[in-house]
């Protein structure tokens, strides 16, 4: 909210611009590099979520693929047939989508058709990367805009429906409040509660993305400063609301089923009876029958190791929704409805993110080669989009082919990067507060940024240097290379070749984590210097638009 306020007072400038103006060129450059970096990681992680939700699931893949022609049709409709009729267009799109959703069941039970949509992880990853490229190159009205309309309305609809469902059904929470895995040995997450609990994506509470949007985008949408409080708090409350529903969705599942879905295949193994045995040995009794039956009722071959969160939420929510709308028979349809909603949502982010990343790359490279800066040029567009897709696509592919870590090695990086951006932004706000001579209120941003700094830096360092191979990238790499040197193949990898790939991923992750920690520390040092300077000055030195300060202060 503070960011929103400051950006509004600065003509809706972006974060990097604000940092450059208030804290000098170095801090500005860091914020400018940090944003695309996080964007790349975010796109890769979201891509992983989609891939994990759709792999080996013909029904889900068919429905999600169907959204492409539907969006194209909607785009043409709103452009040429009945220009600008959003209501009609969205209604047609939604109707077609529901048809695709229901028809998906037929596809999944017809072997001839199911074969086309029963895709492996790497194939899906490549499709997704190609999709991101084309969506970024095609004109926005054809694909981006209609799909965005569809996902916006679907999103609101699904969330309202879920809220009603939760209130009507009042499901019991199956998951104990604290499991024995808080010591950091859990199958889903490794690492102790502190600091890793605090670097999960706490969207409604603290998130670097929020600040990216709050600077640049939102200030252009509000009418006056008095709306900032409502928008800021309202946005936070809405996000937390969705987050709480997601937690309910995960907790209404039987804990055994939850762990079966969220533990990687390297830990619980493939056949249902083996997985059930492993999970029961953790103290959550579950039978192979339960797992099989759950998979069957949602129309999947298997629900084991479908990590990434999206499938879990889908199953949890499907069990809530089907208990008040349609009963057990509808469970599969509901589940794929939620998957569809998540996938659409993420694909929208993937294409918007790719084009945003393309502009950032063009901005960055354009500094060296001025011709590349012309964002309207089609050639530049294709090159920029291809570069953007290669960047996040590479991380995504690496995550998909890495059978052990996969999403769980990227996730802490993403969480940490996101929270680090938040810390940087809060630090920036603190500096601005001091520069405005409002030291009295500075604690509002100092307290959370200090806490974030402690958490993210500890987490980042632990991910790099921790001696436990389940946590630290370097020790994991060392363990694997030692094994490779002696010629033994360790559990997750099947060949020596895979081993070396995992080792490479570890070093890559370690490098990225170390880089983020360094960036945060540099920003903090700059901030302290700036605050000292601002304290020494007798009048406000902040740079605002339209205020007399500009003439008087001027840096």
């Amino acid at each position, binding site marked *: 909210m503070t960011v929103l306020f400051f950006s509004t007072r600065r003509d809706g400038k972006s974060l990097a611009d604000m940092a450059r103006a208030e804290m000098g060129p170095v801090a500005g450059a860091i914020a400018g590099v940090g944003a695309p970096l996080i964007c790349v990681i975010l796109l890769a992680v979201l891509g992983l979520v989609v891939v994990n939700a759709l792999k080996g699931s013909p029904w889900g893949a068919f429905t999600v693929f169907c959204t492409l022609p539907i969006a194209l049709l909607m785009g043409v409709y709103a452009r040429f047939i009945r220009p600008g009729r959003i209501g009609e267009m969205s209604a047609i799109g939604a109707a077609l989508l529901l048809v695709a959703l229901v028809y998906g069941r037929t596809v999944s039970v017809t072997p001839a058709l199911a074969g086309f949509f029963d895709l492996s992880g790497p194939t899906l990853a490549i499709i997704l990367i190609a999709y991101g490229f084309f969506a970024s190159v095609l004109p926005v*009205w054809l694909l981006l805009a209609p799909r965005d309309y569809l996902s916006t309305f679907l999103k609101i609809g699904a969330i309202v429906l879920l809220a009603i469902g939760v209130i009507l059904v009042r499901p019991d929470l199956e998951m104990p409040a604290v499991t024995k895995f808080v010591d950091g040995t859990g199958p889903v997450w490794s690492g102790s509660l502190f600091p890793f609990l605090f670097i999960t994506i706490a969207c409604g509470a603290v998130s670097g993305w929020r600040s990216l949007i709050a600077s640049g985008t939102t200030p252009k949408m509000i009418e006056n400063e008095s709306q900032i409080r409502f928008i800021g708090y309202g946005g936070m409350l809405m996000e937390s609301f969705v987050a709480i529903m997601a937690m309910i969705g995960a907790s209404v599942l039987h804990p055994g089923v939850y762990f079966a879905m969220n533990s990687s295949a390297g830990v619980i193994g493939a056949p249902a009876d083996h997985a059930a045995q492993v999970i029961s040995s953790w103290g959550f009794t579950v039978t192979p029958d339960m797992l099989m039956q759950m998979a069957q009722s949602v129309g999947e071959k298997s629900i084991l190791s479908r990590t990434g969160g999206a499938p879990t939420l889908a199953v949890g929510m499907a069990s809530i929704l089907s208990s008040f709308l349609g009963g057990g028979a509808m469970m599969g349809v509901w589940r794929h409805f939620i998957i569809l909603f998540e996938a659409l949502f993420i694909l929208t982010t993937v294409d918007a*993110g790719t*084009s*945003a990343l393309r*502009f950032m790359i063009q901005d960055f490279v354009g500094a060296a080669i001025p011709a590349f800066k012309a964002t309207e040029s089609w050639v530049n567009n294709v090159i920029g989009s291809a570069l953007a897709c290669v960047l996040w696509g590479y991380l995504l592919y690496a995550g998909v082919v890495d059978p052990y870590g996969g999403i769980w090695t990227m996730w802490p990086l993403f969480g940490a990067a996101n929270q680090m951006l938040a810390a940087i932004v809060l630090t920036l706000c603190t500096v601005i507060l001091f520069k405005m001579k409002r030291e009295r209120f500075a604690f509002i941003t100092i307290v959370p940024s200090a806490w974030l700094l402690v958490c993210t830096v500890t987490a980042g360092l632990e991910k790099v240097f921790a001696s436990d191979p389940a946590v630290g990238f370097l020790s994991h790499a060392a363990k694997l290379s030692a094994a490779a040197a002696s010629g033994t193949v360790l559990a997750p990898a099947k060949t020596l070749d895979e081993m070396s790939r995992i080792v490479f991923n570890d070093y890559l992750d370690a490098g990225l984590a170390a880089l983020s920690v360094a960036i945060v520390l540099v920003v903090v040092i700059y901030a302290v210097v700036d605050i000292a300077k601002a304290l020494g000055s007798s009048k406000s030195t902040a740079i605002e638009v339209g205020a007399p300060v500009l003439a008087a202060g001027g840096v």
Partner: protein
Amino acid sequence: MLNRYSQVCACFAQTARLMVGIPDYENYVAHRRKTHPGLPIMTYEEFFRERQQARYAVGKGRFRCCC
């Protein structure tokens, strides 16, 4: 009563359109008439395209994402 109902509907429609970045066309027309009399006013189709382009002009300081 009926009047109030249609008012609520209009409000919902406006909110839904704003969510996808298309502001009120009537407001735009009224604004042009009041502050720029005599100047040309875009038709709804032109207005729609112009707004759609503007909304997705990423990179010009506009940035949207999910998380």
